[in-house]
Each structure stands twice: as structure tokens, then as C-alpha cells.
């Protein structure tokens, strides 16, 4: 009897999350990050005449560097709270998950803390990446 009362009241009071507004924010911030990264790529490729593959790697280094710096000085989580998927989905999210895990674990020392925990969140992304690369690679090899 009590369980049905709890269920009734809880169902009546579900919390609506602002999905539409969050999507807009994610699109705008995520898009701005991509635009900025594209600008960096052009800078390396066309202004400094670096070949494309190396320019892409340099662009990643810049974005990851900026993200890690912003995480370290405690700003990135505030941006992430505003933009949601906009900063977590691009490589910024990957960099942030590693830097934040490393920062969090520094009190347990370099080996047991930082090195053991740095991939705590990012590990899932790496496993997913390696696994999908393996599957797609095999498919291409077999059916090319």
C-alpha cells in the first residue's frame, strides 16, 4: 500500500531536464570549439606550410593542451556545466577526463595515484576505440 503511494507521488514529481536547451548550448559551444580547431589547423597547414597529417596532430596538441590547462586552473568544469555534450564529446572531453583524474589522484602519489587512475574515465573510450578500429579494420580487409 505504501509502495503504491510512493510510486504515485514520485511519478507525479518527475524532474524534467531541459534537453532542448542543453542541445542548443552543446551545439553552439561544441561548434565553436570545432571552428577554433579548424582555424588552428589552417594556421599550421596554410600559413606555416606544415603537411596535413602533422598539422592535424599539432592541432590536437593545442586543443588538448588548452583543455588540460583550463582543467588544472579549475575553469573547464564550469564550461562543461554550461555546455554539456558540447565540451565532453570533442577531444576536449577526453583531455579533461584524463587531467581531472590525474589531479584527483595526485594525493596518492605518482604510481598508485596518478598513473593508476589517469585512464579511470578515459579507459572506456580507448577500449571502444581500439575495439571498433579492430572490427572496421577487419571488415575493410575482408571485403575490399
Amino acid at each position: 500500500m505504501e509502495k503504491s503511494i510512493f510510486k504515485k507521488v514520485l511519478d507525479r514529481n518527475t524532474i524534467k531536464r531541459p534537453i532542448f536547451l542543453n542541445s542548443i548550448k552543446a551545439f553552439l559551444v561544441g561548434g565553436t570549439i570545432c571552428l577554433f580547431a579548424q582555424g588552428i589547423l589552417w594556421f599550421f597547414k596554410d600559413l606555416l606550410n606544415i603537411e596535413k597529417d602533422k598539422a592535424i596532430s599539432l592541432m590536437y596538441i593545442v586543443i588538448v593542451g588548452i583543455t588540460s590547462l583550463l582543467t588544472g586552473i579549475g575553469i573547464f568544469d564550469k564550461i562543461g556545466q554550461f555546455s554539456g555534450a558540447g565540451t565532453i564529446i570533442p577531444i576536449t572531453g577526453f583531455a579533461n577526463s584524463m587531467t581531472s583524474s590525474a589531479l584527483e589522484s595526485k594525493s596518492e602519489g605518482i604510481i598508485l595515484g596518478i598513473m593508476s587512475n589517469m585512464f579511470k574515465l578515459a579507459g572506456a573510450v580507448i577500449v571502444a576505440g581500439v575495439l571498433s578500429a579492430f572490427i572496421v579494420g577487419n571488415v575493410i580487409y575482408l571485403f575490399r
Partner: protein
Amino acid sequence: MFARGKNSIEFNNVFLRSSATISGPRERKGPLGKYFDDSYENSYCGEESWEKAEIRLQKDAILCALKKLGLKIDDMKAIVGGDLNNQIVATNYASRDFNIPYLGVYSACSTCTEALIVGSLLVDGEFGENVLVVSSSHNSTSERQFRYPTEYGGQKPNSMTFTATGAGVAILSSVASPIKIRRATIGRIIDPELSDTQDMGRTMAPAAAMTLKQHLEDFEIDINEYDLILTGDLSKYGSEVFLQIMKEFNYNVTTNHNDAGKMLYDLENQEVFAGGSGSGCISLVSMGYIVDALKKGIYRKVLLIATGALMNPIMIAQGETIPAIAHAISLERSKQ
């Protein structure tokens, strides 16, 4: 002491002789900041890790409560306490240097009232004259244990609560003092079959309602017996569910209810989402503000119902739901 009804205890001779609260920086800036004995400007509290910071908060609060009475730790017969860390590590380490009997208790954010009940039982059972009760939480130790790294940039929903940084201490005693501890109700585990770890306020609301209902039935008292029924930490959304469930039980709680999670912070201007949580939240509010208000006569009788979501990330990952619990204890002016 004697048993009342199904789940309750009435104490004969237990008083709250002294109390102390030490908070973190954000709690100091909140509406109740002026009621805390001391606070730290930085959440590291001068220590090198957050766990050590929480230990520092507890130790400071223990020494502060003793200092107010001019007593030493050896005058305490026992320490009863807990926190939110694995193996209640903050309380274990805070008590390490005090060479007196120690009981660690855990019921998530309702650890505060559970410790008060166990402490009161010891005093009323004549184990000793004074028993020291402590509970705490720290935002960053909780975040890393239950959620994500503090600097992780994932988006938190509105239903999320903010774990309070702070420790509260009560010295319970058989020596007559202005505040008496009279009634307690031990909660049962209530599982409303929710599993959203970012929506714990609503998860705990049924447990709070069941404990209050049982308390009123066991003591055969009216809802208006208390000037204030303080739940903690249901926060914004959980409080609404709590009030509606009580209404379904035909109890109209409105004017004499408040929630520690809503009182500790300025919900409009401090970024705490739905409000405060953690065993430190109701400890700070009750041992800081409520004790002061009782002494001044703003309240005569207050019922504390601390609520705990007994959440474990491993069980949630295994597809389990979150059980919740709430323990109640009353604080009253000894001369009405």
C-alpha cells in the same frame, strides 16, 4: 529509557551539553554561516589531501565542543561517529589520537542522527556521563568516492545535490543542560526502486515520510507537537515529494517543515543545484543553527529526521536500486 510503539525510544535523562560546528568556505558564505564556530577559507583546510581535510574538520569540531565546557577528551566516556568515506575513514582517523572507546556508525547522510541515537542510548544506559557524537562530510571526498573527479567537466542535472563540507559535534550527557533529547525513532530501509544517483533527494523522501509517520504513531502525538520538523538532506525536489507523501498519509505538514539541504545554502545564488546534502549538511544546520535557536527560545521542540541514500556505485553498476533510510531524534528545551 523505554521502548515506545514499534520503532521508537523515549529517553529519561539525556541532554545536549555542548555542540560545535566547523564548516568549509561555501557553507560559511551561506545563510547560516554566522552560526558556525569556525570555518576554513580553503577546502583543503591547511592539509595536503581532502581526506585529511575532513579529518581536520572533525578534530577541530571535537576540540571546540570540549573547549566550550572546559572539559578534556578524557572526560568523555566514548566517541560515536561517522562520515561518508569508505570504512568511515575520517572518523576513524580523527578518533585515533583520542584514547577512549569508539563506535563508528554509518547510514550515509543520516549518520548524524544515527550517531545521536547510539550516543543517547549509551548515556541513558548509564555507560558514562558524557558521550561525544561526531559526523561530517566533505564535498571533494564524496565527489571522488561516489561520483566523478572534482574537475571533470560533465554536466550535472538540476536534481543533483551538493555535498556539504563540514563537521558537527554534540556532547551528550546526563548532566542537566538547556537542551534535552527525549524521543528517537529508528528508521527502516525503504527502497522506492529508483536508481538515479543524481536524484537522491526524491529517493530519500519516502524513507523520511515513513520515519515521521512511525514517530507520530509510536508516541501518539500530533504533527504540531514540533515547532520544526527538520529533514535533511531532501533538498528542493525531495522536500516536495516528502510533503506530498505526508499529505497522502493524511498529515498536513507545511509551516513547521524545513530541510537542511535548503537552509544551508542560498539556492538562488550559490551553485548547489537542488541544495545541500551529506552527513555534514544536517550536522552543520542542527548543531549550529538549531541548537542556537533552541537556546534562544525561537524553537521549543525540534524533530531532526536525517535521511540517507545507501548508495554504492558497484551495486548501481550491477543494476540495483538505491535503498534509503531516515532516523529521527528530538531536541527540546528542557525548561519549556
